[in-house]
């Protein structure tokens, strides 16, 4: 049966080769190299900091944070999880992965929230950015690993850049959605009292969109964690590397340890950020209240009730 490729084959592969290897890499490699400096700086600082904190102190602090923003149940879960992570011997890798994730999420937020705001304010921009976001979300990360390596080299930072590309869309989308779903009459009221567009944004739109933006941040965080192993392919370390090397050596045990670390970290971060997002809805006791309640015989009804919820 005849088909068009019998006559002519579109040389898309060589075009892309030429465009990237022949034009983008030689001309812009310096630019891209410079771009990764802030990412590298933040990552190194975070990694250094997290590695320097003793395991016990980190565990206690994160447990208290979990208690303060979420519930006692999550605090217990956090405590047990972190102890397990240490017991299976992947604490250092976990801290590296955490530093990578936090760096990626930080840059996603720094880039994504303003883009989301811009998309909310201009339909044209929103329509323009939507297909880009669709591509970012659907294209398999393996496809852009190669050009990333060409432009940035191998190592932690290129891994984070791949993570950012993969994890960026939700925060842009949800920032846009959150701002757009602020009730029209509130915007009208704000303008009626003489607000400038900037004041409307800061006084009304962003505070009311905060919960949705936090949900976006949560999604971004989860996507970033799911990239941990893939980023290891181009030289990122941490738990991803443990899993990757385990895979290479058919070492099921090591891969499981790395995998368990990722899962536990993901669950802790997910629950904490979710609780942060819903905080404005449900009044939770602050950290100070929690500390005080530690010394009371009875915990507040509120925190024990939500503790049961997350335990069930």
């Amino acid at each position, binding site marked *: 049966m005849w088909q068009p490729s019998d006559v002519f084959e579109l040389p898309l592969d060589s075009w892309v080769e030429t465009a990237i290897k022949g034009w983008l890499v030689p001309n812009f490699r310096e630019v891209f190299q410079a771009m990764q400096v802030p990412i590298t700086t933040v990552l190194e600082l975070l990694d250094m900091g997290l590695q320097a904190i003793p395991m016990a102190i980190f565990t206690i602090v994160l447990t208290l944070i979990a208690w303060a923003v979420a519930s006692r149940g999550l605090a217990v879960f956090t405590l047990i999880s972190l102890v397990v992570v240490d017991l299976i011997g992947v604490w250092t890798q976990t801290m590296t992965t955490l530093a990578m994730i936090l760096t990626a999420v930080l840059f996603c937020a720094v880039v994504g929230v303003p883009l989301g705001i811009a998309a909310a304010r201009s339909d044209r921009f929103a329509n323009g950015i939507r297909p880009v976001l669709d591509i970012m979300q659907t294209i398999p990360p393996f496809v852009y690993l190669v050009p990333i390596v060409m432009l940035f080299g191998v190592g932690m930072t290129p891994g984070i850049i791949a993570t950012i590309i993969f994890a960026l869309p939700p925060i842009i989308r949800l920032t846009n959605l959150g701002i757009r779903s602020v*009730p029209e*009459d*509130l915007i009208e*009221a704000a*303008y009626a*009292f*003489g*607000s400038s567009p900037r004041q409307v944004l800061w*006084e009304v739109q962003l505070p009311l969109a905060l919960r949705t933006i936090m949900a976006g941040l949560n999604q971004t965080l989860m996507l970033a964690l799911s990239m941990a192993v893939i980023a290891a392919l181009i030289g990122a370390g941490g738990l991803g590397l443990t899993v990757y090397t385990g895979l290479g050596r058919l070492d099921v045990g090591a891969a499981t340890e790395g995998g368990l670390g990722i899962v536990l970290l993901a669950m802790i971060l997910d629950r904490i950020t979710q609780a942060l997002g819903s905080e*404005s809805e449900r009044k939770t006791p602050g950290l100070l209240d929690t500390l005080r309640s530690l010394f009371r015989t009875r915990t507040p009804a509120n925190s024990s009730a939500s503790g049961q919820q997350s335990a069930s």
Partner: protein
Amino acid sequence: MTAKIVAENVSKVFGDDPEQALEMMKDGRTKDEILSETGMTVGVQDVNFSVEQGEIFVVMGLSGSGKSTLVRMLNRLIDASDGKIMVDGEDLLAANAEKLRQLRLEKLAMVFQHFALFPHKTVAENVEYGLKIAGVPQGKRRERALTALKQVGLDAWADRKPSALSGGMQQRVGLARGLAVNPEILLMDEPFSALDPLIRRDMQNELLELQREMKKTIVFITHDLDEALVLGDRIAIMKEGRFVQVGTAEEIVGNPADDYVAAFTQDVDRAKVFGLDSVMETPHALNLATDTVGAARDRLEELGRHALHVVDGGKLAGLVTHRALSDASIDANARLGDYVQTDIPTARPDTLLYKVYDQCTTGLPIAVVDESETLVGAVTPGAVFNTLAHEQEEPTDDGGADKTPQSMSA
């Protein structure tokens, strides 16, 4: 009295090419024709009005009549397509963004139908909003917010979130937010429509009470004619983007401009619209100092009355009845003084008819006196009830003022 807001030939077309629709409007095409031919909606069509300083100007219309669009054009939440709007002598449509912001900050506050309180701010922060935007320092704006909250009786709720408040209380906060910036003009877009009837009545009374002290210029939008009649110094009836009639409550009810207005007003309780001044007649009073019993008898006979008021130097002194003078033994030359009844019904000219029902039961004419106790008119019970019965008959003659529709009397 100066005009605070003047609107001339104001129109609003929603659509891609307002010019075209405006042309069609000028050619006398109807709203529906324009919609079906061009797909554009005419919101407001060639409206003219002015609102005086300290006046409550009510725009009343059903949903879709363009009243909400109209009020939003007064602070340019919606830009008018055509016409001219002057606020305090300033051309609103010519104002640039900065000037407009200034006008909104200083002169034009707004109260919304669904309250539009910011859910993430406390009650006090909501009330402070306009001041915060204007850059008033924290301590001072809190103080002013609390003053405004006190005016509406909610100062105890300052640090709660609006969601903790009932609908009526939320709208009080909305009102306080409007008052806190001390605006000259208050735009109220169906502020009480979302409240249940009892609360609505309370809020209306409260607004009138506040207005007595504040003397703001208020543009009040409503779809409820009763509310319009209670609140409005002047009322504009709006239909399909046009003003059908503008006038006082008495003019609207007493002399509806067309069937549309008449249909609205037919169920209105006229006793709550008409004041005594609309039914009173010239008093034909007797003079305490000069008139004798004989003269009084003659006057009663001549006018066919059974009672007449007596004045002393212009001021009301009392009333003499036919019965009191009918005793033949009374000397015709005797002074009236001894026969004057002083315990008689009196009322002010602006007293509404429903408030004198009790006084009508005495059967005596009601003396209408002004602040200085000067007798300005008399109202017979018959005249009161005739006015109330009037709605069953055909609308009045075209003679504008519906004053003293009954020269017929007892």
